């Protein structure tokens, strides 16, 4: 939005321009008759175009895999039961179920793990391409040696609930899913993180903890990783996640303790 703030407002609305300092809302846009000035109209269309492109962009697991190069973990590709984007958008239930090949592939790696990390496209592949690998590496930096980590999965056409099937198939006590959020008009690259203790099919949102709006202009990946690592430690300590697990990560005493 900063590019909007610096531009001169047409139609004699400049006296109101000072109000724009108080909010990112699209105020003081000027008007031509009852309509929007051309530049404002096109700015909106560009923001919408970017958001839509993020929703429809094909997920490229290999691009994420390349960014994870050097990590000492196996990396698996999985796919939900939604075969393509149009189906995915209309059938959230399919996006929460694994396809048959993925069930078989995960079965070969079943074990007893503390945590399974899942990097998923969700509603913005762009967010996952741009921020998921980096955020994961930062989380791993915060974790001690005491965590046994399952193979990392890269999930295509995935909803949040897919993590429950993945975590259960791998035998993980906790899942941490980094997934593209529904793009806002000014935040096409926003990543969300969902933590679920005891993943199994049928978990609800009340069973999860969420860290939202992870992107450089929102909650930056460094801060997000710290918050997520804190929640992971607390979740393992308490043996739960969801509404009973409070995020006190901004309390420095608790972090150091």
């Amino acid at each position: 939005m900063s590019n909007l703030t610096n531009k001169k407002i047409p139609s004699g609305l400049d006296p109101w321009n000072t109000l724009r300092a108080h909010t990112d809302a699209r105020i003081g846009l000027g008007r031509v008759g009852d309509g929007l000035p051309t530049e404002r109209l096109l700015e909106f269309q560009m923001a919408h175009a970017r958001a839509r492109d993020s929703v429809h962009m094909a997920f490229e697991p290999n691009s994420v895999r390349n960014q994870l190069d050097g990590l000492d973990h196996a990396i698996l590709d999985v796919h939900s039961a939604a075969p393509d984007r149009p189906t995915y958008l209309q059938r959230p239930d399919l996006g929460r179920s694994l396809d048959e090949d993925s069930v078989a592939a995960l079965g070969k790696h079943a074990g007893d793990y503390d945590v399974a990390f899942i990097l998923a496209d969700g509603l913005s592949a762009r967010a996952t391409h741009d921020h998921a690998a980096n955020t994961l590496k930062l989380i791993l930096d915060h974790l001690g040696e005491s965590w046994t980590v399952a193979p990392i999965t890269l999930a295509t056409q995935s909803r949040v609930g897919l993590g429950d099937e993945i975590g259960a198939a791998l035998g993980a006590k906790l899942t941490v899913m980094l997934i593209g959020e529904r793009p806002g008009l000014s935040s096409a690259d926003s990543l969300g993180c969902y933590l679920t203790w005891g993943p199994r099919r049928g978990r609800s949102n009340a069973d999860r903890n969420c860290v939202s709006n992870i992107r450089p202009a929102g909650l930056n990946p460094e801060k997000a990783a710290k918050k997520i690592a804190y929640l992971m430690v607390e979740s393992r300590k308490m043996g739960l996640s969801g509404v009973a697990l409070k995020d006190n990560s901004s309390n420095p005493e608790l972090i150091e303790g």
Partner: protein
Amino acid sequence: MQTGAPFSFERFTFSDLKTLLAKASPLRSGDLLAGLAASSDEERVAARFALADVPLKRFLSEALVPYEDDDVTRMIIDDHDPDAFTPVSSMTVGDFRNWLLTDEATPEALKHLAPGLTPEMVAAVSKLMRNQDLIAVAKKCHVVTAFRNTIGLPGHLSVRLQPNHPTDDPAGVAASILDGLMHGSGDAVIGINPATDSPEAMIELLKLIDEVRERIDIPTQSCVLAHVTTAIDVMARNAPVDLVFQSIAGTQKANESFGINLAMLAEAEDAAKGLKRGTVGHNVMYFETGQGAALSADAHECIDQQTVEARAYAVARKYSPLLVNTVVGFIGPEYLFDGKQITRAGLEDHFCGKLLGVPMGCDVCYTNHAEADQDDMDNLLTLLGVAGCNFVIGVPGADDIMLNYQSTSFHDAMYLRSVLGLQPAPEFAAWLRKMEILDQHGRTRPQLDGQAAQNLLAWSGAA
């Protein structure tokens, strides 16, 4: 209540009323998701033929959710007014459509009929209607309400000014309020969705709006759209509550998923009326609804999403609201896939609400994962203006930076008033003229360097 005989048309049969309604409904993704939609276009039209022959009386004897299990059903049946129903009591659904379109169905006749109609009857007839029928009949239904101004008069269009901010920052909210007022928006309500649902946050925002309203004497009402229980709490602490808001749905289970029941709504209405803050009227409730809400809570009771939505208007009607709006494209493409489905749903919701006697407005909106854009919103907005919609939403630049969706803008409302010759609520229009925001032709052409504008800016400096 008994389930009657099955329905049939040619080779198609439909086991009960609920199934028949679902199969007759125009195609939408939410009914596909729920597994309720017709399996072919032919089956859909066959269902409409069968539905056209169903007597309206059948809807009084065959409940879609059992009376014993659901308080919304009980309310619909117990509150039904048989005298008001008399003029149409011998009609089938098909006859009813024909009658609604005739000149016999005058605004006066429709007003008297409303308490005799159930949401299921209204949903049923909507499924036999083309978009133009939905518009033509809704235009004849005048539902007028009042608090500090009068909303829903023919030839008028009001706007909810929605100055949301991601952190409820008072200066940010105030800046959006001023922008909206200078564009002639805010006569329906100045209504904020709070980022935090707490009594303290609600009181702070209420005081902010109340201060500007009193300082520059704006004839409108305010609302902070927190949960009804939060509103009840702050009313007990003497906070300046004009309207109580709540999201509602068409089944008991869905309302429970919102953390509400009918008794809470009654309690809130009583408490808000008791504050006696209205000047020209005493409609104190504001409700939002939307197709797909019940299904997303897994509480749709296997009713199609349009019919269960109409049941929410029966809930709204009971509490004499000032404002009710469907948030028609908010829920996402798994319920309404594209601009065509959103448009149809918006017109259905407006029609069903109005025919039931509910003061319907519409949040014409979409999300970035739906197949829709601003052209679709322009179309629906214009159609609703023609249909006599009571109010629409005004968000700065159509971009709600808190809820992350696109609604209609202050500019959109100016456009609609201009092309259709619609006026703001009369009391508010008089204020806009005094503030040099409306010109002598009734157009929104604010004098930005005038004294009134300077007074507004001065207030914003203080906020």
